[in-house]
């Protein structure tokens, strides 16, 4: 006969396993939905494609305009939406977790606005003809991306500096982020004031994120950073769960909270700046997705990171497809759509307050 303590132990382990299985199912469902949504987006876009021909081009190659649409427009666009959505949601989940602030995201920390300012800065102040010879590799589309990256990283350094100062509370960092956002927004507006019509159009075009604008080469760069940083956060997930119980306890459990926080901020912000600098600003995916997932995964940060990333990718693929097809023949940049959907959700989160998370 088993003792009652033994039986209770078994029951507990069974319940824990059941909880984990629920989350594995969620992960599997997300993966299946991503695959389905990706194929859907490849088949159904602004231009209607024949199923047979599309399948033929997908699996056997071929040439012509259909090949071009599928391999140079639709597939890179879907993969970029997946990678950008995953990266932004992961970065949002990480920032919320380490700043212990459910309202933190690349958006709230000013990183997105800094990127927009950087791009506007390069568009308005430099024309391609003005690029000095040693910067010629940045010609064309890379120039705004380069400046977007530069300015967002500068913002990260400022945020890190503030978070490192001895008295900085999580709230201080977010408040600093809000101040930085307004500063860069003001800067961008000032630049727009001095821009000519063409520059103004480019700045506005750039500001609204669109995964359709990236090339294969840029997609590889995003994927490179996404994969490394994603694997890092999966590996260190448990440490980040422990940070939630406070720095003092984390330290007493052998987790170096300062180091972990610094690594996380650096990794998440590099990922964000790389994505924003190629895709443009896509708001709210990084803020909202982790909230939806956290309801299911609770404190397990590893499960939160994995599933937030997957859900972020899925959300962006679906939003991007919607933005392209819902208002035919007008193709909206997905950044506009996510802003429309995300802002009310954001307000809902604030109104709901602590009880929600």
């Amino acid at each position, binding site marked *: 006969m088993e003792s009652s303590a033994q039986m209770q132990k078994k029951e*507990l382990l069974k319940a824990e396993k059941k*909880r984990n299985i629920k989350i594995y199912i969620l992960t599997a469902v997300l993966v299946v939905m991503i695959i389905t949504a990706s194929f859907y987006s490849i088949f159904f876009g602004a231009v209607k494609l024949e199923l047979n021909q599309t399948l033929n081009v997908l699996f056997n190659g071929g040439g012509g305009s259909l090949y071009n649409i599928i391999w140079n427009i639709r597939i890179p666009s879907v993969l970029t939406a997946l990678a950008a959505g995953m990266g932004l949601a992961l970065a949002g989940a990480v920032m919320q977790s380490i700043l212990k602030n*459910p309202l933190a995201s690349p958006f709230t920390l000013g990183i997105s606005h800094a990127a927009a300012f950087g791009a506007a800065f390069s568009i308005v102040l430099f024309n391609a003809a003005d690029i000095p010879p040693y910067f010629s590799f940045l010609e064309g589309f890379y120039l705004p991306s380069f400046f977007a990256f530069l300015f967002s990283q500068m913002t990260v350094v400022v945020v890190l500096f503030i978070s490192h100062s001895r008295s900085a509370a999580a709230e201080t960092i977010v408040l600093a982020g809000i101040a930085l956002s307004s500063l860069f927004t003001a800067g961008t507006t000032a630049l727009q004031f001095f821009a000519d019509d063409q520059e103004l159009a480019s700045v506005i075009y750039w500001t609204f994120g669109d995964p359709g604008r990236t090339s294969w080469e840029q997609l590889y760069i995003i994927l490179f950073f996404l994969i490394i940083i994603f694997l890092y956060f999966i590996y260190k997930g448990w440490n980040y769960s422990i940070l939630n119980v406070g720095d003092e306890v984390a*330290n*007493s459990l*052998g987790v170096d909270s300062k180091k972990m926080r610094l690594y996380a901020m650096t990794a998440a912000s590099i990922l964000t700046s790389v994505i924003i600098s190629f895709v443009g600003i896509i708001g709210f995916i990084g803020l909202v997705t982790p909230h939806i997932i956290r309801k299911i995964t*609770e404190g397990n940060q590893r499960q939160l990171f994995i599933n937030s990333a997957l859900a972020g990718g899925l959300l962006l693929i679906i939003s991007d497809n919607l933005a392209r097809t819902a208002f035919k023949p007008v193709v909206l940049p997905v950044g506009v759509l996510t802003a429309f959907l995300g802002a009310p959700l954001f307000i809902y989160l604030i109104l709901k307050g602590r009880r929600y*998370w």
Partner: protein
Amino acid sequence: MILDIKKLEFGYGKEKVLENISFSAVQGEVIMLIGPNGSGKSTLLKCITSYLKADSGEIKIYDKKIDSYSKKKLAEIIAYVPQLKEYSFSMTVFETILMGRKPHSSWAASEQDKETTAEIIAALNLEEIAFKNINELSGGQKQKVFLARAAAQESEIILLDEPTNNLDLKHQLEIFELIEKEAALGKTVIVTMHDLAMVSRFAERIIMLKEGEIVSDGDKKSLSAEKINSVYGVEVSLKEHNGNQLIIPEKIVV
């Protein structure tokens, strides 16, 4: 000797918080740290966990300075439960207690870690709340969960910062029972306390701090009315009851 502290000094900037602190502890000993607010009790615990670095003096564990231990190794020896607070995000009780296994594992909890966690949950009768969100628990339940996490850590030293604050009488007694259980297993427990009645009922050894200095170190008989008066600025009378000393606060000394 498991813990040996010599001439420990600590300050935030110019402000001295701990001065000339020296004491040692042996295995299975329960030490209660008392003193008014701001006397340095919590700071002393944080220095022992090495979360705060002492300005001078030394803390030795098993005759080795704490700086010579890696963070992970130190976590295998010392568990720490701070004062109660809200967490930003929800966590289940099971997850919280499982965290105590972190120093003994690498990137993920093993099956063995989960078994240990389940055993502790069953032993402390927490199974009803095992998968509840920690932020939804009452103060007493929460504190029991954190003690369970410290137990899961299987460390030789447990540091508790005001574990009975804001708890009702029954929960306070439950916490003391848990402390006694851990001590019976040979663990050294250092507890900061405010409630002098509880201290005089349960303490074997009491260290009293005033403005960062130790003013008394001894058994419950060492708590004299004069000492309490000079440290807390409160006049008290002491009464014997069933071999225990009762402390009755009378009035503030002007």
